[in-house]
């Protein structure tokens, strides 16, 4: 019963409101429902004024915005605005953002409508407003929550893994080949070439690749197989030198470590490719690892590697380059498999745990998609609206 009453009230009010505003529009062209507010979620540099979209019969072609600072006389802001300038499709309201304000003053606005015939009619003045800088962007709350939730899942999973519980990781095709490749290089007495791609040191793929390199280095240290690493990024070069040195130390073979095997070629993409290609042809490595972030040079490297008959194990999260590695290499780690491979080989609880945390993230997206499809089909679209409105 109570419900019905409220509905009735809303209906009555809306009709009344529409009727009066319609009357207003036809009676005079003066803008109605003019409201000025401090623009939400900004740094206090603007005030937003909104008013109703005029009726099509009103003949209004544009608006002037007048403002008054601290109660002084009204003055016109900028040029006359056309209807297209002010109508906001999303909210179906007219909107103007005054960015010429200072946080120290208060402002009052009048909207002046201009018709085809040049008639001018003023709206009533708004209440006075002042702008404040917001500390937190409320539109970003969902983003913030998602970030916290996911962080908690990752950190939780890592602690779970560190507590000594066994973490399962599924078999990753291609990883068995790592030992085979190293073994073959040792048998043939040839070198191993390890290419980390073009990524910088903060790329996930580069870090995953460095972890795998660390594991490969442990194995080559024992067999004294030369491990050659040409670098493209100056910072990566320095980190890799330290990492490989540590691997050799851990295996008790610091004598086998040769810093000259890890070197910088150039930052330029194709000059780097030319250099690495030259190395492949001249040194004829028995095994080639292409792991990390790659761009167009991927196939130049992979085809040349294939032509010298080396075993090639590739892995990248650059999805555009995956087809070429699949075509030209013996084994390819696809996208996230690269990250998983580093966890799989290193067997470190931190990596294994976060892999599990990422699976929770996937499960969540899974659920969101299924729920979203059902809701959308029943005409409820708050999930898509929410995802869209996050700025």
């Amino acid at each position, binding site marked *: 019963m109570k419900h019905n009453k409220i509905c009735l009230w809303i209906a009555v009010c809306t009709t009344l409101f529409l009727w009066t505003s319609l009357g207003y529009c036809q009676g005079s062209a003066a803008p109605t429902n003019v409201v000025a507010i401090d623009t939400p979620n900004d740094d206090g540099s603007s005030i937003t004024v909104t008013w109703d979209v005029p009726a099509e019969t009103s003949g209004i072609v544009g608006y002037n915005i007048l403002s008054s600072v601290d109660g002084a006389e009204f003055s016109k802001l900028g040029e006359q605005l056309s209807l297209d300038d002010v109508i906001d499709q999303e909210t179906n309201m007219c909107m103007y953002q005054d960015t010429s304000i200072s946080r120290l003053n208060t402002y009052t606005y009048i909207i002046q409508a201009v018709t085809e015939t040049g008639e001018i009619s003023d709206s009533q003045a708004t209440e006075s407003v002042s702008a404040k800088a917001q500390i937190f962007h409320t539109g970003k709350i969902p983003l913030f929550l998602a970030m916290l939730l996911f962080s908690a899942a990752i950190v939780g999973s890592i602690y779970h893994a560190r507590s000594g519980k066994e973490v399962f990781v599924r078999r990753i095709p291609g990883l068995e080949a790592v030992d085979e490749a190293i073994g073959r290089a040792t048998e043939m007495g040839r070198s191993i070439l390890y290419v980390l791609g073009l990524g910088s040191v903060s790329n996930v793929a580069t870090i995953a690749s460095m972890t795998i390199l660390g594991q490969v280095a442990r194995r080559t240290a024992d067999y004294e197989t030369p491990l050659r690493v040409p670098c493209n990024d100056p910072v990566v070069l320095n980190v890799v030198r330290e990492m490989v040195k540590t691997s050799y130390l851990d295996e008790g073979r610091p004598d086998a470590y040769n810093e000259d095997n890890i070197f910088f070629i150039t930052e*330029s*993409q*194709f000059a780097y490719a030319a250099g690495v290609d030259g190395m492949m042809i001249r040194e004829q490595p028995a095994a080639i690892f292409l792991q990390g972030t790659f*761009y*167009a040079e991927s196939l130049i490297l992979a085809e040349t590697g294939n*032509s010298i008959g080396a075993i090639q194990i590739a892995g990248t999260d650059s*999805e*555009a380059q995956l087809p070429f590695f699949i075509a030209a290499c013996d084994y390819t780690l696809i996208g996230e498999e690269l990250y998983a491979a580093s966890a799989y080989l290193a067997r470190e609880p931190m990596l294994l745990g976060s892999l599990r945390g990422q699976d929770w993230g996937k499960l969540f997206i899974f659920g969101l998609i299924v729920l979203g499809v059902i809701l959308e089909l029943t005409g409820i679209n708050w999930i898509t609206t929410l995802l869209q409105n996050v*700025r």
Partner: protein
Amino acid sequence: MFSRLVNMDRRYVFILVALAVIIPMLFSVSLPVSISEPTQNLYDYIENLPKGSTIMLAFDYGPSSLAELNPMARALLIQCFRKGVNVVALTLYADGTTLASTLIKEVAEEMNAIDGEDYVFLGFRPGATQVILGMGTEIAGVFETDLSGKPLSEIPMMKDIVNYDQIDLLVDLASSATPDAWIIYANVQYNLKIGAGVTGVMISQMFPYLQTGQLVGLMSGILGAAEYENLVGMPAKGMQWINVESFVHLLVVLLVVIGNIAYFAHRSREET
């Protein structure tokens, strides 16, 4: 014979590819081109901008991709200059600096566009993400001067342009993931409208953005360039090259088919 075909030396393939390019180039052939929707959308978006609007043109490619992207840039510039749409050009690629400035000067000369009034070339600043973000607050904060060292405050065209709020569209001509960066940082954070022209390899990477409406339009590869040249009404290299392209594609398809026939014939012979 089949086993020979299956394990054919790759250098024979190289020779065939070279011939497939050289022969059609000597005898120029022309085939019809139809216009795809994303290209049309980009063209319409610019065509509907009022005279005196400003678009930003990012030359985010090095010389290695100029084959596909230069014809696009040329067609876009012709359209803008003809319509009186101002162009603010820049690059996030160190390598793109000379290349872009040469091209812009060339087209400007053809179309009688004036440096500083119809277009500005800002040049290059390192650190792609930072540059994109920085211009969101103030373009002059990142590029104090244009490439020739003239302060932005003294350039007539830049008088009213502070940041992205005064830019009607950004077109990113890209050979790598820069459109992602423009979308993530300029579109998401500053609501800048973005269109793109990309190399063939990038096309499939751009489709998600096209579908979500984060890109207003897209020119894809040499075909996109040919389409745009058609729309602008000035057929040039793009049109010529797309024809040669056809022959090489046919060759690759043919090679794959022959390879498979040989493979299966070879296998069935080994089995028997």
